[in-house]
């Protein structure tokens, strides 16, 4: 589904502050799976997402999505295949527009935007239905500006908008990290529902080991730009993951597992 081959990426190249985040990095993501990505700050998780989604250009290597090399596609051109939900709930919405206006914009995603009126009253009922599935009462607030919504409401709207055109790949970039535990659980459940209902291949960065174990089919742990652990869910316990996270003793676990 997604193949990243021989990826290299460094920052501040040629200066004394040069950082090599990835060097000949390889990863394969299977179709329909939810892959949880763990790793300490600075290990390259977000850089990996930025490279996949086209925010950053790779120095070397290939990104192949469903057999198509997307290296030369710009961020907005990759949007037809890739959806992304950010940690900051405001990054996936237009705060000064209403819920209806935001959803109407995402309904036209990757189609040609024209001088036609954006709001089509015929679609309102179906938008209401989609919003109703979030169980947050947003279907009754269609004309409320998004800036007046809570973080959780905004994030669930971002999630809905990112998956509106059923992307081939969904990137969840610590998308519940800024929410309180109750809202975070709710958003995770809605995420699970959306990706299972539409069979969306998902990569999920999270620092919440419980969530990664509960919702991922596969768990990958990155350290200094390398895949240090790559296991199917069920092959590792929460405690073992926490131990590894704290001690970074990947080898001993891998030996045990073998």
């Amino acid at each position, binding site marked *: 589904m997604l193949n990243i081959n021989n990826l290299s990426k460094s920052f501040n190249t040629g200066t004394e502050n040069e950082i090599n985040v990835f060097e000949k990095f390889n990863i394969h993501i299977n179709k329909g799976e939810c892959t949880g990505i763990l790793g300490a700050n600075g290990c390259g998780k977000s850089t990996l997402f930025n490279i996949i989604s086209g925010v950053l250009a790779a120095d070397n290597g290939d990104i192949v999505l469903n057999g198509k090399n997307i290296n030369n596609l710009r961020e907005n051109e990759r949007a037809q295949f890739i959806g992304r939900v950010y940690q900051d709930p405001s990054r996936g919405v237009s705060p000064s527009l209403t819920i209806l206006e935001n959803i109407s914009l995402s309904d036209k*995603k990757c189609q040609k935007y024209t001088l036609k009126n954006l709001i089509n009253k015929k679609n309102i009922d179906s938008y209401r239905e989609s919003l109703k599935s979030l169980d947050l009462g947003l279907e009754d607030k269609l004309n409320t500006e998004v800036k007046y919504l809570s973080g959780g409401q905004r994030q669930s709207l971002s999630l809905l908008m990112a998956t509106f055109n059923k992307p081939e790949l969904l990137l969840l970039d610590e998308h519940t990290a800024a929410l309180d535990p109750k809202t975070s659980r709710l958003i995770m459940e809605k995420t699970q529902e959306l990706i299972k209902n539409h069979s969306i291949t998902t990569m999920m960065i999270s620092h919440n080991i419980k969530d990664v174990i509960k919702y991922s089919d596969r768990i990958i742990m990155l350290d200094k730009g390398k895949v240090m652990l790559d296991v199917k869910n069920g092959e590792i316990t929460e405690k073992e993951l926490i131990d590894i996270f704290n001690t970074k003793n990947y080898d001993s676990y891998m030996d045990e597992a073998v």
Partner: protein
Amino acid sequence: MKGIDNVNSLIQTAIEQGLIFGVLAVGVTITFKILDFADMSAEGTFPMGAFIFAKFILAGMSPLISTLLAFFIGAFAGIITYILHVKMKITALLSGILTMTLLYSVNLRINNKSNVGLFNYDSIFDNMEVIIVLIIIVTIIKILMDLFLKTEIGYLLIATGDNETLVKSLGEDSNKYKLIGLMLSNGLVALSGAMMAQYQGFADSNMATGIVVIALASVIIGDTIFKNSKKLKRTTRAIIGAIIYKVIGAIAIDLGLSPQDLKAISAIIVIVFLGYNNLSFSIPFLKDLKFKKVKEIV
């Protein structure tokens, strides 16, 4: 009786000028308020519109065509700011200042002089009362802008100023919308300049000094006074803001203020309205004052 007539005439002049500045304020609203782009190039585009109008009217073209050409050529000034900012990665503020500086010389070149008299030439105000012509033009611009902002492209323009990441995630190049916004804004500013040249009877290279502050003052006045009115669109708020600004200036002059102090008054109006908006929520005394006011009204 004569005094009342004078005041009426002063207020009418202020409303007429306010309507012309209303077009300017709508243009500046697109960049400063919608795109969140502090585009200073308006100081160059406003006289540019006046000089372009002068160039074509002197060449024998009709006033309407000359005015429309000022809009279209003014829109191209937006392309300069776009290239500087988007393609050459110069900050928005500096890009606008550079375009403004560039246009100062361009404006002098258009007619090869810094002041062109237009008293003996046709203008769009010849066949009807000035105020009627202005109301018609401003209404058409307002309606067209409102309709545009309701379209898919119009909403993407708003979303670009709000959150570029979202626009890219919708599969669109957000720079395209910056270009549309800058062109539309500069076009309207130039149109306003062309209208002002016809109204005052001349185009002058210094006619735009401090114009961005005047436009901002108009937008801020409109937004502050009507911020709780959901029915008034931002275009209407900008136009009414410009009229109020001009009327305040006219009253101040009538009360004995020297015209040379008007620029300072513009700046003070912006400071007072911005300060009122920004500080009243953080100063308990002012907060209480507001609360009391609301209670009194209730």
